[in-house]
């Protein structure tokens, strides 16, 4: 080894540099150290390529349909059967059962969460559909115009699916959900848009109409493992849910959604 670097760089630091786990203050030192050692720089570059190759080889597994036998392990044992697996089946009878189950769940099952109904219901809907591999949405992003027109008509307000590519998320599609019963009149339906990253992290945007014309700040709630940012803007309530993002990441996306819906 030749050495012009002042601060010695350890193997552990080189690995941390590759893995994005090196404290920022040491980046310049490591880069200077590598610049003086072409062989070591090539070794570290090869390690970076390993990560890319591993992801290229194995990430497609995330998009494969989960084999029935694995789903059955969970189904057999799930205490929360009504919902968890309802989305896995297609059929009118089951769909009706699911609607009923969803409402029963929202009303009866106590949740150790922190938020109001919109956050709680958005989290339940997120937890129900986001694990789905084959049927996460009713209408896919390939028919986005149809999707937004349909949901807009059912909710009685003009909806748009925000573009979240800048945040690393692309639209998977959306679905219509049963609404919450309101004091006056029957429940109005709710829309859910689903997004995911290349790595399979998902978030859902839950949109419902509000009886009153109000405006609130962003609020945050956790329902089990699902984090939810929710807010009301004029006659529409929004809740952005994810179990894969931390609060700061989710807030960044919520800001992006808010800006796009209020240009």
């Amino acid at each position, binding site marked *: 080894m030749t050495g012009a670097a002042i601060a010695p760089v350890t193997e*552990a630091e080189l690995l941390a540099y*590759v893995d994005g786990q090196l404290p920022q203050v040491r980046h310049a030192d490591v880069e200077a150290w590598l610049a003086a050692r072409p062989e070591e720089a090539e070794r570290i570059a090869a390690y970076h390529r390993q990560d890319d190759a591993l992801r290229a080889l194995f990430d497609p597994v995330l998009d494969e349909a989960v084999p029935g036998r694995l789903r059955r392990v969970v189904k057999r044992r799930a*205490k929360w059967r009504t919902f968890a697996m309802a989305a896995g089946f297609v059929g009118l009878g089951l769909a009706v059962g699911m609607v009923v189950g969803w409402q029963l769940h929202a009303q009866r099952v106590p*949740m150790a969460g922190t938020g109001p109904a919109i956050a709680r219901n958005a989290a339940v809907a997120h937890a129900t559909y986001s694990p789905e591999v084959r049927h996460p949405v009713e209408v896919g992003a390939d028919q986005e115009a149809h999707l937004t027109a349909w949901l807009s008509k059912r909710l009685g307000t003009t909806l748009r699916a925000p573009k979240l590519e800048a945040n690393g998320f692309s639209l998977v599609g959306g679905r219509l959900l049963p609404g919450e019963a309101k004091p006056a009149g029957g429940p109005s339906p709710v829309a859910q848009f689903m997004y995911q990253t290349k790595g399979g992290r998902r978030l859902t945007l839950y949109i419902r109409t509000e009886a009153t014309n109000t405006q609130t700040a962003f609020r945050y709630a956790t329902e089990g*493992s699902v984090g939810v940012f929710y807010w009301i803007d004029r006659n529409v309530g929004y809740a952005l849910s994810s179990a894969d993002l931390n609060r700061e990441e989710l807030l960044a996306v919520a800001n992006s959604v808010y800006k796009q819906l209020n240009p």
Partner: protein
Amino acid sequence: MSDSHRIVEFIPRLRRYARALVGDRARADDLVQDTLERAWNKFHLWRPGSDLRAWLFTVMHNVHVNQVRASRDHAMLDDDGAEMAVAAVQGAGLELRDLERALALIPAEQREVLLLVALEDLSYAEVAHALGIPIGTVMSRLSRAREKLRILMHGVVANPKLQVVK
């Protein structure tokens, strides 16, 4: 929401990790299935509020170690065995560019660490916790795994320590 239900969310990720760990698709799904069964049975051991994903990797690690031990496939967990395999491949003059085959030649304990870091983005501390090993061991296994994989993929022995000449 039921925390145990959340296990479902992680099935695709468990499958990705298992595929990379054991290679074969059917064996990987067997490992995932055994992991799910065990996770449901042992769910009371999970500490609510802690990272469920990391805990599932711990469960999978334990299941995998037991399976490897049961099959008496000690070579897969034995460092020397793999280094000899590397030498044998090079000695045979074969070019090994197939990442899957290269991965299979790395000892399982090193492969685990590499995959948890590179595929699953776990921090070194999380890997240490998930596998129940000191962080220094995480670093040494990761270092060896990366270097072996590099050699296997390029057929270049840069580190004389890894040269096995007998």
